């Protein structure tokens, strides 16, 4: 049994974070200055840099600021940006969380805005941190999975081991989310065969075809030079490894960023925007995707890496599963799980899968991950546009 923070909507968090959110890049510095003294004490910095309005980023910020791991929010606005700050504040207030919006122009500039923000946190944070915990089941967890800095060992060790952990979580009634359609290119028929029903299978194929078209227009696959250095030759080879993260369970649905899975099971997160190519690459780096997994309700993130990524995230703990034994030896301080032991014959796939599953529960109970302990709180949010989910995407 875990211990979680019960929120007014009935969901439970495994962390109790106060977010400071800048609503345009012009407010970033002030927001960072407000948050910095408290960054070891449960205050995380998030934000959106653009000045133009965008329904996707507004929806993302609403979901993130009312995420079960979040206990309160301070919004930092310059004053003239296009972000709908009043709607965001109303959404947070309606969720029962403390919220304050500071307008830098109205408050009288940088110095006064920083002082006002720190004053509010000084009053709000101690009370927020007194929020009691309640018992929480594994079936109240949502876990997202991502791979970053992949190499040819990712698909042999860490990704299939996370797949084993996913199968264990699904069996216990958790919600699990895997990604990303741009790294499932070539897997569409395999995935469709695992769909809960044929209509969902068609939607799964459509989502991958959309990703292939989108990336073809941009001229690059979701494939970094380091992937090839690590022995991956093509996007479809990388996809095979990435796909192993999903485990063996039936695929119950497709979600888009900010959609919380309606019930237990395994879901694909479709991260590629709908319509014509508009705002550039779907996800410009791994953290853009982590933020989307969190916006879908993930309280914990499983992250596999072969080359050696160091990132964590704001809001949700990131568990780093290292696929490559040489990388683990070089970067042990950043890695939570040494899945490369499978390659060396020192552990089996089921053993490492079980180890990841057990660690999810300990992290869910408050044990800090390596990236959390090192202070990693990366966050990024960019422009996108999505249409609503098709009728076959979610279980009824």
């Amino acid at each position: 049994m875990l211990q979680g923070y019960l929120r007014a909507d009935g969901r439970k968090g495994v962390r109790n974070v106060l977010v400071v959110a800048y609503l345009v890049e012009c407010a970033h510095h002030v927001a960072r200055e407000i948050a910095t003294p408290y960054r070891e004490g449960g205050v995380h910095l998030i934000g959106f840099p653009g000045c133009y309005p965008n329904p996707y980023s507004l929806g993302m910020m609403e979901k993130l600021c009312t995420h079960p791991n979040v206990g309160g929010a301070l919004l930092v606005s310059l004053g003239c940006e296009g972000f709908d700050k009043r709607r965001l504040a109303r959404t947070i207030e309606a969720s029962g969380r403390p919220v304050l919006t500071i307008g830098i122009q109205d408050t009288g500039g940088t110095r006064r805005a920083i002082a006002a923000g720190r004053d509010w946190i000084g009053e709000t944070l101690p009370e927020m941190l007194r929020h009691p915990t309640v018992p929480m089941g594994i079936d109240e967890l949502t876990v997202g999975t991502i791979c970053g800095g992949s190499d040819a060992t990712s698909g042999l060790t860490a990704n299939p081991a996370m797949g084993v952990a996913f199968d264990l979580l699904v069996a216990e009634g958790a919600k699990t989310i895997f990604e990303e359609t741009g790294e499932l290119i070539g897997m569409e028929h395999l995935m469709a065969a695992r769909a809960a029903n044929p209509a969902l299978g068609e939607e799964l194929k459509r989502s991958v075809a959309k990703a292939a078209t989108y990336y073809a227009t941009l001229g690059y696959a979701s494939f970094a030079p380091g992937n090839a250095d690590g022995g991956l030759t093509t996007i479809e080879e990388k996809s095979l490894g990435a796909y192993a993260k999903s485990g063996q369970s039936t695929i119950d649905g497709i979600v888009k960023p900010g959609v919380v899975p309606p019930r237990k099971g395994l879901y694909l997160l479709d991260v590629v925007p709908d319509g014509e190519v508009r705002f550039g690459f779907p996800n410009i780096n791994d953290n853009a995707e982590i933020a989307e997994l969190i916006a879908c309700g993930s309280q914990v993130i499983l992250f596999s890496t072969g080359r050696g990524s160091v990132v964590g995230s704001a809001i949700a703990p990131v568990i780093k599963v290292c696929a490559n034994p040489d990388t683990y030896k070089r970067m042990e301080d950043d890695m939570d799980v040494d899945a490369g032991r499978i390659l060396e014959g020192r552990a089996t796939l089921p053993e490492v899968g079980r180890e990841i599953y057990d660690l999810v529960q300990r992290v869910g109970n408050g044990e800090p991950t390596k990236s959390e302990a090192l202070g990693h709180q990366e966050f990024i949010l960019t422009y996108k546009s999505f249409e609503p989910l098709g009728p076959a995407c979610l279980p009824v």
Partner: protein
Amino acid sequence: MMRLSPRDNVAVALRPLKSGETVTLDGATIKIGRHIAVGHKFAARAIDKGEIILKYNCPIGTAISRIAPGEYVHTHNVESNYLPTYQLPDNPNEAK
């Protein structure tokens, strides 16, 4: 060495392989063409130009030249059937 599926025409090095080294794969002896790092691939049999490369019994690309048994299989002799593989200009994987 590991062939992930019996039908695969490539195998994966589970330890670094040296140029000229001979390895045994499913009873057959294969001479390794050049150094192969952990996780990288070599041809498990002769592969014709235009042949689909199979790993985990799944297509991962197409051979753009004839590949001899034991030869390194990577971006210099295989292309994606979907989207091109991007590499930094001064970092040719063939040189490793």
